[in-house]
Every structure is written in C-alpha cells, then in structure tokens.
C-alpha cells in the first residue's frame, strides 16, 4: 500500500538547513496497521505528513497505492488524499463553525459523494453519536469530538488511514474507547492504518511498530512478534 525509498526531509531554518529525516525506506502492506513511535521531535509527525501527502519529500520516492506521491503537485496530492486517505488528529481538527454532522459530511462533499448526508448519518451512528449530529464541536466533549473525527475519517471508505496521536488529548477512559473504536472500524473496513503515537499501549495493538529516533527509523521485530502472537491467541 505504501512504498518508500530513501526519503529525506530537509528544511531551511534561520540557522541554515536542518535535516529532519535521514534517508528512510520501508513498506506498509495493504490492510496492515503500523505504529510509528518515538520521542517528541524525533520526526514522526514529519514522516506522517510526507506519507499522507501533506508535505513533499526533499529526496526519495513514496508510492501510495502505487501512485508516485513524490512526483505530484499539491493539487494532485489533494485529489489523491480526497480519494484514498482518511485522517485523525490529536487536536481533532473539526471545523468549529460546522455541526458534527456537517463535519462528517465535509470529505464526502469535497469528493463528490452522491449522498453525503445519509453517509454521514450512518458514520455517526457507527461511532454512536447520531444524537449529537447537530451539535457544534465546542458543545462536545473531547472524546465525542474525536469520535466525530473518526466518523469523518471513515465516511469516504479510505484505503489508508493516518492517525496522529489520536488519543493524545484524551483521558485514559476516553482514550481506551477511541482506541477500541478505531481498531474495530479499521478491521471492519480492511483499511490500512498508519498511526503516530507515544502511547506504547496503543502502539502495541498495531501489527507492526516503527521506531523513530533523531530522524532515523528502526523496526521493532519483537513487537511485531507480540502482535502476531496475540492474533493467534
């Protein structure tokens, strides 16, 4: 689903060029769930931005569902995101002036879905928030806002879902609920999941963990093994 080859990211700062990502290569298979873990500032969010086509690599190649992201301009990447990618963010990123329902409808409308309202109502139902459809984000709790964001992420049935610290702004109880919901929906729809987190508990639920450290990536096989064992059991 995702193929990367020697991708790097260099940014210009007032103190000269800064290499945030060292050359990184890895693949993510279709239907797989991958956690990118690492300390703050290790470059995991930057990597997520590149994989999701929100940002452009300095060097290297990224193929998303066989399409060469690294060769696309912003317009092409936007189209690609609309068609194949879903997002969940730490700060929920709901449009404050739209209701829960309208927030969920947003990607469907942008991509020209024939029945965005109906699809959005169904998606809200799936996350158990149909009764809050007409509330604005600031009338919802953090957990509820993230459930709206999840509904929004799944409405277009994306092939791949990117989640950036999805439970980072939530308390333990709400975090657990969200985690559960995320993985449930992911399994149901067979979506590929790439998530960035500090949370080892959350990371451990993924098929595979990639560790970021100072812009470099290492793969933790033991975690992968644990996951496989859990699947077996």
């Amino acid at each position, binding site marked *: 689903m995702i193929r990367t080859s020697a991708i790097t990211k260099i940014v210009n700062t007032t103190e000269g060029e800064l290499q945030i990502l060292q050359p990184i290569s890895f693949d993510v298979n279709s239907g797989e769930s991958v956690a990118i873990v690492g300390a703050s500032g290790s470059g995991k*969010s930057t990597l997520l931005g590149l994989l999701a086509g929100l940002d452009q690599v300095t060097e290297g190649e990224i193929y998303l569902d066989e399409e060469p992201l690294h060769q696309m301009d912003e317009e092409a990447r936007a189209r690609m*995101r609309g068609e194949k990618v879903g997002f969940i963010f730490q700060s929920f990123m709901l*449009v*404050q002036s739209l209701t829960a329902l309208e927030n969920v409808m*947003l990607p469907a409308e*942008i991509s020209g879905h024939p029945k965005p*309202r109906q699809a959005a109502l169904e998606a809200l139902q799936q996350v158990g928030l149909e009764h809050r459809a007409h509330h604005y984000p600031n009338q919802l709790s953090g957990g509820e806002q993230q459930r709206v964001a999840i509904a929004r992420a799944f409405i277009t049935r994306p092939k791949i879902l990117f989640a950036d610290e999805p439970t980072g702004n939530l308390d333990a109880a709400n975090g657990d609920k969200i985690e559960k919901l995320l993985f449930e929906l992911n399994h149901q729809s067979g979506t590929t999941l790439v998530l960035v987190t500090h949370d080892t508990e959350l990371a451990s639920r993924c098929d595979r963990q990639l560790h970021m450290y100072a812009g470099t990536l290492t793969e933790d096989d033991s975690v992968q093994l644990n996951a496989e064992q859990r699947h077996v059991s």
Partner: protein
Amino acid sequence: MSASPNNAAWTLSWRLFRHEARRGELTVILLAIVLSVAAVLSLSLFSERLQSALTDRTAEFLAADRLLGSDKPVPDEWLDKAREQGLNLAQRVQMRSMVFANDELMLADVRAVDNAYPLKGTIKLADEPFGLGKPVNGLPGAGEVWLDSRLFQVLGIEKGDKVEIGEREFLVSAVISELPDGGFNVFGGDPLVLMPLKDLAATGISGPGSRTDYDYMFSGEDAALDAYYEWLEPKLDRELHYWRSVKDDDSPLGRSVRRAEQYFLLASLLAIVLASVSIAVAAQRYSHRHYDPVAIMKTLGASGAMVRKIYLLQVIFIATLGIVIGSLLGFSAQYVVAELIAEKVPVALDNWHWRPFFIAIFTGVVCAMLFSLYPLMKLFSVPPLRVLRRDLGANVGSRIIQFIAAGSAIFVLMWAYSGDLKISLILLVTGLVLAMALMAVTMGLIWLGRKLGQGRMGAWQLAWARIQRRAMDNSVQLISFAITIMLLLVVLVMRNDMVRQWQEQLPKGTPNYFMINITDQQRPVVESHFSERGLEMDKFYPVVRGRFVAINEETIRTDVTKEDDDSGRRGLGREANLTWSSTLQQENRVVAGNWHGDTQSSDKPYQVSVESKVAERLEIKLGDVLRFNIGSEVVEAEVGSLREVNWQTMQPNFFFVLEPAAMQAFSPTYITSFHLPTEQKAQLGELMSPFSTVTLFDVDARINQLRSIVSQVSLAVEFILVLVLCAGALVLVAQVQSSMDERQQELAILRTLGAKGMMIRMSVIAEFVIIGIVAGGMAAMANELALYLLQSQVFNMQTTVHWQYWLLAPITGALVVGVLGAISCWRLLSLNTSQLLRRMV
C-alpha cells in the same frame, strides 16, 4: 445533495456563511460593510439632495441657473438653440437712467424684463416704502413700473403716482422690497426700477450711447445647461459676453455654498476611507480565523480552486448582504434626517437619483473585494500541513505590499469618486505621513516597552509587554485607530472652523439699515432720537460728494454713461463719496504705503488712501496726486497708502479716505448705520419721520436671506458631521472587537495560569488606553497637517493651529478606545476559563 465539486463549493460556502452568521462570527465584517455602504449612501444621497436644494436656493440670487451677459443683443439663433435644448429662458435689459417726478430726479438701476422673469426665486413687494416684503407672482403691467423704496422717498411719490423714465411716463404700481437678483452691493447700487421689456423701446433710454446690459437667463437640467454652454462657448466673444453660474458667484453666499459642497465631498471621502479601514480590519480577522478550516479542507482533498471558490463566494454573500442592509439603512437614515430638517432646509425628498446608490454599491463591492483580497490570498496560501504543524500560517508577500495595495486602492476610490485630485492627494499624503510616523512610534514603543516591561509583572508591565510584543504585528491596528481618529478630527475641526468663519461674516447685531445725507445739524438730533428709543448707532462717517477728475494733472473721463469710450484715462464713472478719518477703519488693511494717521506736517501735500482694487482698475500708484472737484472747490491729495477692504462686512466702505486736514473747509453730510430687529420693522416709519431728508437703505432682507442660507448650510454640515462621527465610532468598535479576538488566546492562558481577573482587566484597559493616547496624539498631529493643506489649498480659508486638539485627541482617544476595550474585555472575561480555552481551538 450535490455530486459535483462545483456544487460542493456552493453548498459548503453557503453552509459556512450561514453558520458563521448565526454564530455571530460575521457580525463585525458584516457591520463594517453595512456601515460603509450606509454611510456612503446616506451621505451622498443626503448631500446630493441638500446640494440641489442649496443650489436652487442660491440660483434664486441669480434668478436663474445660468446667465449670459452681453453688451449687445445676442443673435436669435442662440436663444432658439437654448429653447431647442429644453431650457427655460428669460431676458433682462439693464441700464442706468434718471427717474423724474415732482421736479425731482434720481439715478436708478432700470431693469426691463420679459414675462418669464424671474426663472428662480421670487419678487417681494411691500405695501409701503420700507414695509415688510411679501412674495408675489407677476410683473408690472404695460405702462407700469415698480420702484425701490428709496425712489419713493427721494422723489416724494406714492403708489399710483406717475414717473418719467426717458421719453415715457409710467404709472407707479408697487413698492419693490426685494428682487431675487437684487445683489448685495449696498452703496454702489442705485435704487431699482422694474418695468416690462415691451415698454423699453418707447423710453428711448437704451439707444446708442447708453450703457446697456443684455442679460439672458437660463434654467433647466444641469446636463442640458452644460450641453448648451458647450455649444455656445466657441461663439462667445470674451470682450462682449460673459457666462455666469451660481458657482462662479464670489459673494459670501457663493463661497459658503462652494465650501459646503467641498465639505460634503470631503465627508463622503472620509466615510469611504473609514469603511475601507474597517473592512480591511474585519477581513484580516476573518481570514485569520479560517486558517484551520482551510487546512482541514485541503487535507480532506479540496483543491485550491475549490477553496478559492468557497471563500470568494462567502465574500460575495457577505458583500451582498452588507450592501442590501447598508442600502436600506442608509436610505432610511438620510430620509429620517431629511424629514427632520425639512422645515429648515427644503430638501425635496421626491427628488432623488440612482447615482448615490451606484456609488454606495460600487464602494461596497470595491471595498469588500479589494480590502479582503490580501487577507484572502493569505488564507488561500495556508498549507494543509497546518493540521499537523499548527505554527504554519499563510505565506504571502510582505505587509508593505498590503499597505501599498490598500493605500492605492483607497486613493483610486477617492479620486474616482471625487474627481478631485487635490483633495484625494492631500488625504493620501497625510495618511502616509501618519502611517510612517506611527511605524516610527511603534519602533519607539518596542524600545520603551523593553525598558518599562522589566521587573515584577503588574498590570502595567503586562500591558507594556503585550504592546511591545505586538507592536510590529499589530501596527496595522494602531494605524487604523489613528487614521480613524484623524479623519474624525478633520471632519470635526473643519466643520467648526467653517461655521465659525461663516458666522463671523454676519455677527449678531449686524447693521441692517443705513442712513445717508444726515446734515451736521441733524446729527445730534438723530443720535438722541435713536438713543431714546434704545437703538445704538454705528459710527458717523462724514461724506462729501466729489468728482474725481484728474490723476497727476491728467484729466480723466467722468461721464456717467459713456465710460467705455476709448478717449482719455478711465475714471470712476460717477461721483465718489469722499470721507476723511485719521484712524483706519475696521476690516481695512494697508497693503502699500503708510496710513496717513493724524500727524500733519505743513510741507507735505494732503494724503489720501485709496482702495486697492479701484487703484488697480484706475491705475493709481502710490505718490500719484489725485484731484477732486467738490462743488466749485478743488482738492488735491497725494496717494499715501493703498487699502484692502473687506467688502463682505456690512459697514460703509469708501474708495477714498482723505486726511481730515484736507477736508476742513467742507461741511459734510454723514453716513451711519444701525441694527433694528426685523420684528420691530413697523417702528421704522415713526423712527424716520422727523428726518425726511435723510435717505434710508434697507438691507435687512438681504442680511436675513444671507443668514438663513448660512444657517441652513451649517445645519446640513452638522448632520453630516454626526453621520461621519457615528460611522467612525462604529469602525472603532469593530477594530477593538477584532483586536480583542487576537487577545483571547493570551487571556485564556493568563487565566489558566491563575492571573486575577482584575489584573487581566487592568492590563487590557491599560493597553488600550496607551494605544488610544498614542493614536490620538498622532492623529492630532496628522490632523493639523491635513487641515493646513485642505484649508489653504482647497477651501481657501484662513489656517490656524488647533492646539486644543493636541490635548483633546489623546485624552478622547484614551477614553474611547479604553472604554471600548474594557467593554469587550468584560464580555470575554465573563466566560470561564474552560470556555475560553475551548474558543481558542
């Protein structure tokens, strides 16, 4: 629901617009557009109506909209053309001639008019000489004349008597109290005679050798009048013809109206600038608040085109709504105002045009588009990556470009609207100077803030620290505050200066009656007679009638009726009133030479002071020796000084003022003036009855006319001032609200960190107070510059420094901005911390 992305953009745009409007997020920007449109519409609608009312009113003084004067009758073709163009036409033939009755004679200003006269204004007749005038329709019938009160007095006649003019006898059928085109000249004018044009030929007075003016008066639509003049102009001979409109009128009235018109224009221009500033502020806020939604939409796959469409459509929605509400509001406001003042200024409410609507809508559209363009461009450039990195903002050009774009947009708007490059440039230049000065001040504040912001964190330190940190970022805000205050000051001070100068022209108690021919013996009797009745007399000016006959031994022409003959040097054309005085009269200013005073040395010739315009016309220079024939005596005097005389004052003024010693041998008559309230006019007959030989000039009606117009214009200016002040105050509110928004996040953090509400409040108030003081102070300085340029270059007024505003502006700025800041702050702090934090997201 929609399937195509095009429809999606519409749907999304409309949805965002609806929600934002419902949540009150659009209030500020909508209010800004509503205000701008309402202000521009009401101002231009109102001033257009007012102008046409005032122009109509002043046209009455010309008795027409335009006048073509000629020394000879003009070709019929010219008049036919005017009729063809749909213009109304009246003819007046004017000459000076003697009027005889009872063996008495008097030189009069004879006006023969056709049936269409007057095209504007009304004739007023009195029942008896010097009686109260009543408006009438109609003109003297064939064989009849209407005469000025003075003729009745001098010729000793009554209504129904006969007078001779030239070779024809006329029946005197009415007393003229006022002709619309009677003119303001109190002393130069001869008494008026009005007669039918058809009877003129029979008198023989307009024959060859007489000096006759042929005046053709026109009225009609401005466009038709202009078109006619365009056709006529190439045919005119400047030596023979002249074209006049009310606007060429250099009377105090003409000038008042011109100034008022310029003031309306200025006020409307300022309203446009205010509107633009508020829209720029509001648009910036709007754009900033939508960085996240744009990043989210882009992340979710919206193309650049779709985002642009969504937001441009929103601007169109907002602009449309703003324009509609603003138009309704503006129209109602000016309607109400016009209704309220209808009694004092007859503004015709049914007489309105589409032009102000077009201007208002054009202004709304241009302002909404041009001033939201840059913030929108910033908004469009927000990268989708902002969803992950919140610090990423817009990335478009520098603020300098924004300033240049906004400045030129304002300038183009002003220029296009006013068509007056000078006013537009003056406002632009002072605006620029102000902006640059403010930039320098903000730099200074950064430095000062660094010094003062050190030490323990109290409210003041917090305020200074915030100003320092925001100084560069929010210099726009400071500049917009200062510009708003400056524009309000300009409108206010301009109005004060203008109204004051108008009122000074005609102070209360201005003499409205003049008496001449008071003999030496009569003088004390007159004085005691008047003082017994509680009436104060003005100074008595001695007058001797003399004929000005030679300059430096060179004889000049003295013939009354043939002064345009080519032979000989030009003379006055009539007898002059000679007076003498050792003190210079009020409102007289020596422009060359020295005032003769009362020091007389025997070896020097007598001195005379000559009015500078007459000196110029008759080519009299300092040191010339002038000869006057007074009866059988001859007086020679050397020109010792030239005087500039303010003819607008209602006091006797003289071309020639001699030193007293030169005139000792002559027994003079006196001129004096007094003020009699209009309502006491009935007393006039009784007052004057003991002095049948004294001639009375009644200028009461003229003064009242002038005063009523000046007060109407002042009133109109007052209303426009209030309108602009309201617009400006609301713009200030919008600015404070929008800048409060930016403080929200910081307040939330401070609150969360446990800062006391009082301290936060005090710091916010202190911040606004400091901004208000700085903005007010800078505004006062810029105001001075703008006023100096406007008054000297555009309004032709005396310029003064307005020190009081240097103190008043910072204090008012601090008060107004501080109070507005406090109100918005209170609103914000009434929310609890978690609400505040949530609003930050």
